[in-house]
């Protein structure tokens, strides 16, 4: 489904050049559950940002179903993120003034041709899927950390993306809550969802089918 070929990323700050990714080759197949591991500075965030199309590679090829993503312009990339990628962040990144339902519906707001009723119906469905059917109108500050992350996961799922990108999704949660979140991911995977999990915790990576370890910008 996703093919990365010889992806390189170089950051230039002033006269300093820093090569974060030094030629990454990676294939993600449908219904894969991958864990991307590595210490800080290993380039795993950079790789995740490139896969999530938040950032562009300096060189290399990024194909999604044979379509070259690295050649898209900014509007097309925005559409790509909207349609194909669901992000789950360590810090949840919910909008504090919006209810759970509105937060989940946010990607649909930027998708074309979806009316409010449909948006709300889908958002409600997703919240029920993650077990928050009774918290539709709650604001983020009225929910626990685990609940917030579930809202974020529902948001990632709402537009039926090809790939869920979870960046340290349990990093801000206690171990018991972490476990239930990981169970949720396992369930989603069982239903056919492709997931890329970025983590530095070995225990968490063990939930995945396959683990890729990144060190100094290369896969080892």
């Amino acid at each position, binding site marked *: 489904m996703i093919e990365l070929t010889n992806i390189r990323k170089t950051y230039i700050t002033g006269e300093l050049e820093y090569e974060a990714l030094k030629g990454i080759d990676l294939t993600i197949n449908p219904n894969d559950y991958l864990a991307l591991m590595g210490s800080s500075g290993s380039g795993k965030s950079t790789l995740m*940002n490139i896969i*999530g199309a*938040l*950032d562009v590679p300096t060189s290399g090829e990024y194909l999604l179903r044979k379509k070259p993503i690295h050649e898209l312009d*900014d*509007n097309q990339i*925005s*559409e790509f*993120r*909207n*349609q194909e990628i669901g*992000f789950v*962040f360590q810090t949840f*990144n919910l*909008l504090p*003034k*919006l209810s759970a339902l*509105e937060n989940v519906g*946010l*990607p649909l*707001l*930027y*998708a074309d041709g979806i009316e409010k009723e449909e948006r709300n119906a889908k958002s409600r469905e997703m919240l029920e899927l993650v077990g928050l059917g009774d918290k539709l109108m709650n604001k983020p500050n009225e929910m626990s950390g685990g609940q917030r992350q579930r809202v974020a996961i529902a*948001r990632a799922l709402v*537009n039926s993306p090809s790939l869920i990108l979870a960046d340290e999704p349990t990093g801000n949660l206690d171990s018991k809550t972490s476990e239930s979140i990981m169970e949720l991911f396992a369930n989603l995977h069982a239903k056919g969802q492709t997931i890329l999990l970025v983590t530095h915790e070995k225990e968490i990576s063990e939930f995945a089918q396959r683990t890729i370890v990144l060190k100094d910008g290369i896969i080892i």
Partner: protein
Amino acid sequence: MIRNARIAFESILANKFRAILTTLGIIFGVGAVISMLAIGNGAQQQILEQLKIVGVNNIIVKSIYEKEADNSEEEESDPSQAKKYSPGLTLKDLSNIMEVVPNIELITPEVNYETYALSSTIRKKTKAIGVDPSYFKIFNIELEQGNHFTQLQNNSKKKVCLLGSTLSKLLFPKSNPIGKTVRIGRLNLQVIGVIKKMGGVADNLQSMGINDYNNEIYVPIETLLSRFKDRGKISIQDNRNWSNGKKENPNQLDKIIVQLKNSEDVAPSGELMSRMMKRRHNEVVDFAVSIPEQTLKQQKETDDLFNWLLGAIASISLVVGGIGIMNIMLASVQERIKEIGLRRAVGAKKNDIKMQFILEASFISLFGGVIGIILGITLSYAVEIFLEMPTKISIFSIFLSFVISVLTGIVFGYLPANNAAEQNPVNSLKYE
């Protein structure tokens, strides 16, 4: 567009308090512009109406006298003034003006008495004004009904009168006053006409020598001079003894009103009259020459300047309001960088973010503009009612401030919107 409008609208609703604080600047700016312009326009309008009332090319000579008659102590304290004799304003002055001043179109003397007018049952305090028939031509006074009195009626001292519109309603609330009798002092006058109601004659006009047409009673001057209280032939000294009281004018005439043919003659003729009369009155300045039209035009120029100043100050407050919006929008972009990053991550295009912020700013300023317009109109009416200043709200000022407020939103919304959209989503998401 509709989608972004909805996003912007929801975003404003989510931050109501901030939005309201932001609009305050625009509200007061727009309100100030509209009410200031309304006050300015009102003053303009009033002067234009007054110009109509005072007529063109008129010079008014008013006699000045001491209201407290014969105050000996005061005269002693100013002996130079007391020793000189002045005949006061008389019909002789009038004939002199007619001889000396060229290009006179019309001229009329005027006397007036504070008195009471009596219809069969009602008694009202009023002013009896004695004038020549040309008076009505000079001031373009039209009648509601009946006829003006004629020169013939004046010469033959006919006992007729014209009533001011308000006075006529007070004296004859139910019946037609034409043909009825009104009594002033011991004089019975037949009503032959009612003057058309005029817009209020303000105090400043009365001080220039214009009468309050609505509340007065107009009588041929010859009638009034010879039949009411005879001061046609007596000397000023006699007059002083005779009047024996307070307020009465010891002079024969109260005013002489001259209308000239050409407007360029007005100023020099006014000066000529001043010099001539001063000589005739033994250098005693017991008269005042005024050119109401000129005075009003000067007043208008001052007002114009003042209006510009008012408008400028109000505009500054509008600009300050706009800067306020820009500040808040910039600050809110800073505050919401993470939100922008997230919106980008879930699929918002750069354009979506720009539109969201531009529309947010536009909605806020539009809302502020509408409230400001309401405030401005309310303020204008309040000024009119409570300060009794005339105001006139112009459609132009509403349109102008509306456009300015919307433009403020778009212009001052664009800058931060552009900033917001150009943020790299990776950096935005990391922003704390």
